[in-house]
Structure formats: structure tokens, C-alpha cells
């Protein structure tokens, strides 16, 4: 089988990724989002096109492609044209780095890993690519010659500087544990030390995911779009295919953030508790599917956020980033470093850290719940209730 050389396989994988991801975005994620939000909001969601609405993505695609592509008068034409491209290309490029699974045996002799490439600075490269994607939004907002879009672009810039930093810092803490920037190596190490990094890196994970939501401009951080304030903000002046590109860029970025969360914190393609023999039956499900399930869960969380939270104001968002997340991320680095240094050459420190963080988070959740109950009682007590129910 001379045909299946590594080079050929790489090309095949690239084509597969670039062809399938937009399709998945259009057909699966958008439909799932709309149906799930419908479910959460006591309504149906799209169910007219195709059986149970499954062809909604196709209908949307036809609509977007056949729409007139308008460039507003006075727009910076070249930039206006390039921004959607700038938002979608880095996101699709970043997919090349995501390890979806261990090597797959194609024929008796040929096997190929389920990723396009394993770069030794993988995580760093990913961070770089996701930040470049934001430029599409900033420039798109600026070039539209629309005041609302401009405000959206500026908000995006403010958001970028507030969230890139805590995200990077959160990942630094994990890097201390992984000792590698290669995403494949990160997953393999989680198997070797019998521990998903989410446990010692609980705080890092929360910081990463919140920053990730902010980075992808999703609720509650969808300020550059802010339908009700800026009338879709940066993409107000975009229609047709250009709008579709922004859309694709946003959803691909969501996929990237989810995949990185899975890879770095949740053991990538590993099944839950990969070292517990009693759970070996879970191995029936292929690693690739485990990865998709985990990534799907985070995409679900995105949708869940969207139907639960109101939107932050942009100064509050920056306050959250600079006053809370950056200090917390820095403190987390110190704590993780201390845990690692305390037990040189072993992983006991990480296990201890897992218990400490787990306990802390459980206690905080309990306290928050208690406080919620108390404030509720207090609120009900302060409102005049009058005499009996009916006179």
C-alpha cells in the first residue's frame, strides 16, 4: 500500500477536518443549540425543515449563500472583506493541532494518529491562533463605517486584552504539571500519572473556561455582539457569505476552546478513570468517541450559559478579568509550583492539591447555596405581605 504514505494521510486528514467541521457546525451544533435552547425556554425550536428540523442547517446555508453581499458606503473595503476570513482561518488552522485520538490502525501495516500534526509548542501555537481570530472581529467592526460596529470592535479589543492574560496564566499552571506544550504529550502524561489535570488544576480549569467563553464572545460575555445594545455590533454590516464566515469562525472557536479544555484538563481521548481495571468495559467505546463526548459536553455548557445568564457590562467584564481572574491565576501558579516542588520527582503533591482544591470548591459551593437561601428569606421578609390571603 504505497498510496497511504504519511504525507497523503495528512492531506486526507486536513481535507476531512476542513470539510467536516463547518458541516458539523452548521448541521449539528447550530441545530443542537437552537433545539436545546428551545427546550430550556419552553418552546420548540426549529422543527420544520426535514425530519425534526435536521435540515435546518442546509436551509440556513442556502439563505446565507443566496443573500446579497452588501459592503456599506464608506467602508474600508479591503479590511471589510478580509476580516471574516481573518476570523475563520485561524480557527480552522487551530483544528490541525487537536489530538482527537491515539493512532488508528488503518491496514495491517499502516496506522495514523488522529491529528494532523503534533507540534512541540502546540499549546502556545493554539493560543496564538485563537488571539489572531479576534482581530477579525476588531477589524470587521472598525472597517464597517458604522458607529455601533465600531463600538463592538472596541469592546472586542478591550475584551481581548482582559482575557488573553488570565487564560494564558491559567494554562501556565497546567504547564507546570504537564511539563510539555505538545498536546499529545499532555494527554499521555495524564495517563501515565493516573490523574486528569482538572483535579489539581480545578481553579485553572475554571479560569480557562471563563476566559475561553469571553474569548469566543459568547454569553455572558457576548459584548461585541450585544444584540440588544449594539444591534449585533461588529457584524451589523455583514451579510451573506461574509456573515456566514464570522458565524463559522465563532463556532469553530467554541469547538477549539472545548477541545483544548478536554485535551489539557480532561484527559483528551482517554476514557474516564483510564487506570481503573474495573471500568475496563468503558474501553468498548473508541477513544475518538470519548473525545467527542467530552468536547460535546463543553459545547453544551456554552449553550446552557447562553440561556441562563444575562450579559456583563464591558467595564464589569474588564474588572472581572483584571481584578479577579489575573490575581487568582497568578496565585494558582504559585500554589501549583509549591505543590510540585514539595514532592520533587513524584506526583503526590498533585494528588494532595486535588483534594485541597476539591474541598475548597465543595465548601464554596455549599456556602454560596447557604447564602442564596438566606438572602432569599431576607428578601421575602422585607416585602410587605399585608394581612391574610383573602378577606
Amino acid at each position: 500500500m504505497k498510496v497511504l504514505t504519511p504525507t497523503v494521510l495528512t492531506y486526507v486528514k486536513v481535507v476531512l477536518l476542513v470539510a467536516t467541521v463547518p458541516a458539523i457546525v452548521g448541521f449539528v451544533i447550530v441545530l443542537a443549540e437552537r433545539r436545546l435552547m428551545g427546550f430550556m425556554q419552553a418552546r420548540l425550536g426549529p422543527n420544520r425543515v426535514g425530519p425534526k428540523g435536521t435540515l435546518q442547517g442546509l436551509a440556513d446555508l442556502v439563505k446565507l449563500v443566496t443573500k446579497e453581499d452588501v459592503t456599506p458606503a464608506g467602508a474600508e473595503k479591503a479590511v471589510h472583506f478580509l476580516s471574516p476570513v481573518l476570523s475563520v482561518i485561524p480557527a480552522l488552522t487551530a483544528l490541525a493541532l487537536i489530538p482527537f485520538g491515539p493512532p488508528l490502525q488503518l491496514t495491517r501495516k499502516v496506522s495514523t494518529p488522529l491529528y494532523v500534526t503534533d507540534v512541540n509548542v502546540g499549546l502556545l501555537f493554539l493560543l496564538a491562533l485563537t488571539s489572531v481570530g479576534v482581530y477579525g472581529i476588531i477589524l470587521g467592526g472598525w472597517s464597517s463605517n458604522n458607529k455601533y460596529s465600531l463600538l463592538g470592535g472596541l469592546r472586542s479589543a478591550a475584551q481581548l486584552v482582559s482575557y488573553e492574560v488570565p487564560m494564558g496564566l491559567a494554562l501556565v499552571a497546567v504547564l507546570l504539571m504537564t511539563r510539555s506544550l505538545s498536546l499529545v504529550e499532555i494527554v499521555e502524561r495524564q495517563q501515565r500519572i493516573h490523574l486528569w489535570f482538572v483535579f489539581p488544576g480545578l481553579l485553572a480549569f475554571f479560569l480557562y473556561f471563563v476566559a475561553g467563553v469571553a474569548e469566543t464572545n459568547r454569553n455572558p460575555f457576548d459584548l461585541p455582539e450585544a444584540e440588544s445594545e449594539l444591534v449585533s455590533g461588529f457584524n451589523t454590516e455583514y451579510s451573506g457569505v461574509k456573515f456566514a464566515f464570522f458565524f463559522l469562525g465563532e463556532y469553530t472557536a467554541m469547538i477549539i476552546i472545548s477541545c483544548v479544555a478536554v485535551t489539557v484538563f480532561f484527559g483528551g481521548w482517554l476514557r474516564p478513570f483510564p487506570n481503573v481495571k474495573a471500568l475496563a468495559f468503558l474501553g468498548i467505546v473508541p477513544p475518538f468517541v470519548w473525545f467527542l463526548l467530552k468536547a460535546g459536553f463543553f459545547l453544551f455548557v456554552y449553550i446552557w450559559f447562553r440561556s441562563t445568564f444575562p450579559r456583563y457590562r464591558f467595564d464589569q467584564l474588564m474588572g472581572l478579568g483584571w481584578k479577579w481572574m489575573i490575581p487568582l491565576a497568578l496565585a494558582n501558579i504559585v500554589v501549583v509550583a509549591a505543590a510540585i516542588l514539595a514532592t520533587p520527582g513524584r506526583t503526590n503533591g498533585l494528588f494532595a492539591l486535588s483534594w485541597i482544591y476539591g474541598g475548597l470548591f465543595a465548601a464554596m459551593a455549599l456556602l454560596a447555596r447557604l447564602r442564596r437561601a438566606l438572602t432569599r428569606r431576607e428578601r421575602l421578609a422585607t416585602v410587605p405581605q399585608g394581612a391574610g390571603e383573602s378577606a
Partner: protein
Amino acid sequence: MTDERALTDAERDEAEYFARRATDSGVARPASGVVEHHESPTLFDVQEMELNFGPQHPSTHGVLRLVLKVDGEKIIEAKPDVGYLHRGTEKLFETETYPMGIPHTDRMDYVAAATNNHAFCLTVEKLLGVEIPRRAQLVRVILDELQRLSSHLVWLGTSGIDLGAVTPFWYAFREREQILDFFEEYCGARLTLNCMRIGGLPFDLTPGWVERLAEFIDDLPARIDDYEQLLTDNRIWKKRTIGIGVISAEECVEWGLTGPVLRASGLEWDLRRAQPYECYDELDFAIPTRSNGDTYDRYIVRVQEMRQSVRIVKQCLARLEPGEIRGKVPRVIKPVAEETYASIESPKGELGFYCVSNGTNRPYRMHCRPPSFINLQALPRLARGHLISDLVALIGTIDIVLGEVDR
């Protein structure tokens, strides 16, 4: 807007503000508020941008246009420009007989038609001196309170969306649909109800209406709990509403603000209690007030009012007895030549009609005191110094309906 003197005050404030800014930044700026454009503005100079907010904007609740002067996202000045929905309703009243005026009121505050009908009828009834039968009074109160619930539900849903919380909207509208079903069953219409007549009601209740309503009303407090679950203790919701658009009770009175806006500032003023009409004086309900006068308090007050409305409807349903639904009204309504004013507590505040009769079957002049319009006056004052995101919250919190603002 209407209050000339207050606007001048605001303008004087503005001029002082600019003068102060000019001395602070070393840039000469005329006190009139007109901006001089410099060749090369310095980095920290105020760079104003004029932003047209509306009339086509998803968060202006209709066709409100605000001309904003913004420094970045900070609002230096917000000028409402109203009138895009002006239909000359008050003039129309003069050209038609008294009963023919009622459907016009439906189209004023179109999310609360019943209370509009009520205020109009009440004014004419005051001129005529008619006594309303007890059953009609009770049904009117039930319709009013259902309307208050549905109006507050629209407010809750839309102001949630303004702040990015999409889900409460669907819950609120689910319940509102049910209330509209009750209206539809009663009078055939869901929005423009035309559900009251001078002297009473057009129809008696349909069979089974009372029982179904009782069931729905019993269920409602749990649904209100659902909305509160999503918003009241929500950290982001609180961050977005607490301390936004603070206005004191004194200022509210000076501006003539009424309704939940006034009560959230701490003044217990509700026409249902202060000047009871129909049978409100015998009903047992509380008037929720709060003291901070910010957007959060206005939210709490409205939610609590919904709970009180539930109580009122329950009490009225318990008191319903068969009886007349229209008082003794002449076939042709020709009040004596007189002037009168009657007002009710609409979901948005004091809704009143001032009627000048010249003894014919048409009013010589029928003026409306629309709470939306008068509450809207406060918007420039509330918005100054806040961000564009807050402006959206503020438009939501004063709860305006443009049909009533423009009439």
C-alpha cells in the same frame, strides 16, 4: 420635553459640566455645549460621538429615538425624540361620540388595553354620575389586575432581553399568552380589548371562566418564583441593575413620575389605595415599596406587584355574585357641560383623562395623562454618566410603551 424649566436646569448642568471639563483638560469649550472640532485632539481629550439610538433599535421598545452624545461608551447626553407613532388620538376623541372613544384607548398603551379603557370610562362616568353595579366593579378590577400582570410580564421579559437574559422572556410570555386567552374568551380580543363600556361592561363572563381563572391564578405564584430564580439573586443581573439610574422620591415627585418608578424610590403612592376607585378600598393588598430607587428596586417592586395582583384577583373571584353588569346609562351619552379629571393606577403609573364637555355627545377636549410619556422625561436625567449598556437597562426599567408616549 414638557417641563421647560427642568430642561433648562439640565442644560445648565450640562454647560457647567463642559466648562469644568474644559478647564480640566485645558481645552477651551464654549459653555453652550457646542463642540469645537480641533485639528488634532490630544489623547485624553473628550472625543464626542453622536449616536442615533433608534427609532429602529431592538431595545427602544418601539420607535423611541434617542440622540446620544457619547464619550467612548459613556453617555454625556441623551435626548429623547418622540412622536414617531403619533396618531392624534386626543384629537380623534373630539370627533367621535364618547363610546366611540374607547377603542382608541386600546391603541395607546397597547400592552395594557383594559386599564386604558377603564380610565377613559371612569372619566366619562364621573361626568355622568353613573353608579357602577357591583359585579361590573369586581370584573373590572379582575380585568385590570390581569392586565397589570400581563403588562408586567411583557416588561419582565423584554427588560430581561435588554440585559441579555433571554430565557425569562419565554417564560413570561408563556404566562402572558394564558392571560390573553382569558381576555379572548371574555371579549374576543387579545390585545386591543375594548372590554369596558361607559357605565359597566359589554358582556357578562362566559361559563367556566371564573373557575379556569382561579386555577391559573393559583398556579401563578410558583411561576413568578421561576422568574425570580433566574434573575433576583443572579450575580450578573444584580451587577447590571443595582445602582443604575438612581432617582430619589423627591425628584420623582418633581418630575411627576408615578407607578413602580416612584414606589421603588420609597414613596408609598398607589392610586388604588390613595384614591380608591371601583372596589379597591375593600380589598386587602400591600403596596410594595423599596428605598434605593435604582433599576434593581424597580424590578423587585414590579415582581412584588405581580404577587399582589394575584391576591387581588383571588379576592375578587371570591366575591363575585350574579348581578347587573351595566349601570343606568342613557342611550345617547350627553354629559353636562363640565370639566373633570379621573385617573387610575395603570401598570405604568397614573393614567388619567381630563375631559372638557360642552354638553354635546362628543367631548370638547379629551386630554390624556400618559404615565409612559411623563416617566420618559426622567430618562435623560437617569442616563447621564452611565454607559450605553445601562441606557438599555434604563429604557427597560421605566417601562414605556411608545403607543402611549406618542398617542
